[in-house]
C-alpha cells in the first residue's frame, strides 16, 4: 500500500532551510506493520468483546427488551445459576479484585519506599513512582515532596526528573517552578532547568530566562540556559 501523503499542517518559518527540510520529511517512506499485528488485535478484540454471561443468557431466553421486569428476571435467573454455570465470570471478578489489590499495594509500596530512611530505597521508590505518576495524584504529590526536601541530592534530582511529564499540569507545574525559584543547590537547579528546557511552555521558559538574568542561578547554569535558549531560537 502506498504511503499516505504528508499533511498540510501550516508550518511557518523564516528560514528557507526549514522549509526544505519540512518538504524532504514528507518524502520519507514509512514502515508497514505485519499481519501479526492484525491477527493479535482481532484475537484480543474477540476476547474483550465477549459479553457477560447475563447478557448471553438474556438473549438466549429472548429477554432483550429493556424494563425492570426483564432486568429483574435476568438478575434472578443469573443469581440462581451463577454458581453452577458461570465459573469463568466468578474467576474474572476475582482477577479484577486481585488486580485492584495489586494496584493498591503497589501504591503503598511506592509511598513507603519514598519515606524510607535509606536514600537508595527512596531512589528505588522514585523510579517505581515514575511509572505511575501520570495517573496517580497521590504519588505525584509524594514525588513533589521528595523533589522539594529530600536530604539526598540524587533523590531530589531523580524525583524532579520523574515529574517531567507533569510540568504542564497546573498545580504540579507551578510547584516545580516555585522550587526552581527557591533552589539553592546547583544540582537541583540543573535538574529543574533541564526539565523546563525540555518540557516547559512559553511562560515557564520566560520565567527561566528571567531567573537566569537575575543571577539567581549558578553562573555555569546561566551559561547553560543562555546557550540552550539561543540554540532553540536560531
Amino acid at each position, binding site marked *: 500500500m502506498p504511503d499516505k501523503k504528508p*499533511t498540510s*499542517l501550516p508550518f511557518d518559518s523564516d528560514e528557507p532551510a526549514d522549509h526544505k527540510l519540512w518538504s524532504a*520529511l514528507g518524502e*520519507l*517512506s514509512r*514502515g508497514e*506493520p505485519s499481519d501479526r499485528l492484525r491477527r493479535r488485535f482481532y484475537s*484480543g478484540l474477540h476476547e474483550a468483546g465477549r459479553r457477560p454471561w447475563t447478557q448471553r443468557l438474556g438473549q438466549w431466553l429472548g429477554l432483550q427488551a429493556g424494563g425492570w421486569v426483564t432486568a429483574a428476571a435476568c438478575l434472578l435467573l443469573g443469581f440462581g445459576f451463577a454458581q453452577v454455570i458461570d465459573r469463568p465470570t466468578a474467576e474474572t471478578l476475582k482477577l479484577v479484585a486481585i488486580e485492584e489489590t495489586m494496584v493498591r499495594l503497589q501504591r503503598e509500596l511506592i509511598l513507603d519506599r519514598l519515606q524510607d530512611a535509606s536514600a537508595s530505597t527512596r531512589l528505588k521508590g522514585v523510579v517505581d513512582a515514575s511509572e505511575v505518576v501520570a495517573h496517580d495524584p497521590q504519588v505525584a504529590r509524594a514525588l513533589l515532596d521528595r523533589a522539594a526536601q529530600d536530604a539526598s541530592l540524587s533523590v531530589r534530582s531523580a524525583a524532579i526528573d520523574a515529574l517531567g511529564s507533569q510540568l504542564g499540569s497546573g498545580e504540579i507545574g507551578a510547584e516545580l517552578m516555585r522550587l526552581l525559584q527557591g533552589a539553592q543547590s546547583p544540582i537541583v537547579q540543573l535538574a529543574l532547568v533541564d526539565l523546563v528546557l525540555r518540557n516547559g*511552555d512559553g511562560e515557564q521558559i520566560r520565567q527561566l530566562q528571567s531567573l537566569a538574568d537575575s543571577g539567581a542561578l549558578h553562573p555555569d547554569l546561566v551559561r547553560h540556559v543562555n546557550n540552550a535558549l539561543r540554540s532553540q531560537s536560531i
Partner: protein
Amino acid sequence: MQAVSDEQLIQWVANGDASCLGTLFERHHRAVYQFCLQMTRNPGYAEDVAQDVFLKVLKAAKGFRNDGTFKGWMFNIARNATYDYLRQVKRHGDPQSPDDYPEALHVDECTAEQSAEGQQRMSNLIRALASLPAHFQEVIWLGRFEFDSFEELAQALDCKQGTARVRMHRAMKQLNLAFTDINGAPFDA
C-alpha cells in the same frame, strides 16, 4: 468521505459494541504503528506498542469526550504508551536495539531514480531525525504525517496550540542543526 465518523464509532464502543473498534483499527493501525516505529525504532516493539494502544483505546472508550477528535485522543494514548515503553528501555536497557535501524527502514525503500547523493541526504535526514529527543521527534512526525492543524496536533500532544507551534519550531531548528552536523552541510547547500 467516511460513512460513520471515528467519533461515532468510539461512542458505540463506549456503549458496549467492541466490534466497532475493528473499524477504527483498520482506519488507524498503520499510522499508529508508523508513529510507534519512529519512536521505538524496532518493528517488533512497535507492533507490541500499537497493539497496546488499541487495547487502551477500548478500555478508555468511555472517557472519550467530544471536545476533540478521536484521532487526536488516540494519538495522545499512543504517545503515552510509547513513553511507557521508552521509560522501560531506559531502565532496563534494550537487548535488541538496532542502532542503524532507521536507515535500514527508510533507505531500502528509496526509489531507483534517486541519485546516490540524494539517497545519502535522505539517509542523513533520517539519522538526524532519529538523533533528536523523543519530544522533538514526536512533534515533527505527527505534524508532518498525521495532523493538518495545530489544534488537533495540540490535542495529541496534550498541550495548548501555542505550545505545539513553539515545540514544532524548536524541533525543526534542532533537526536542522542535527542534519548539518551529520551531513557536514546544511540541507539547502
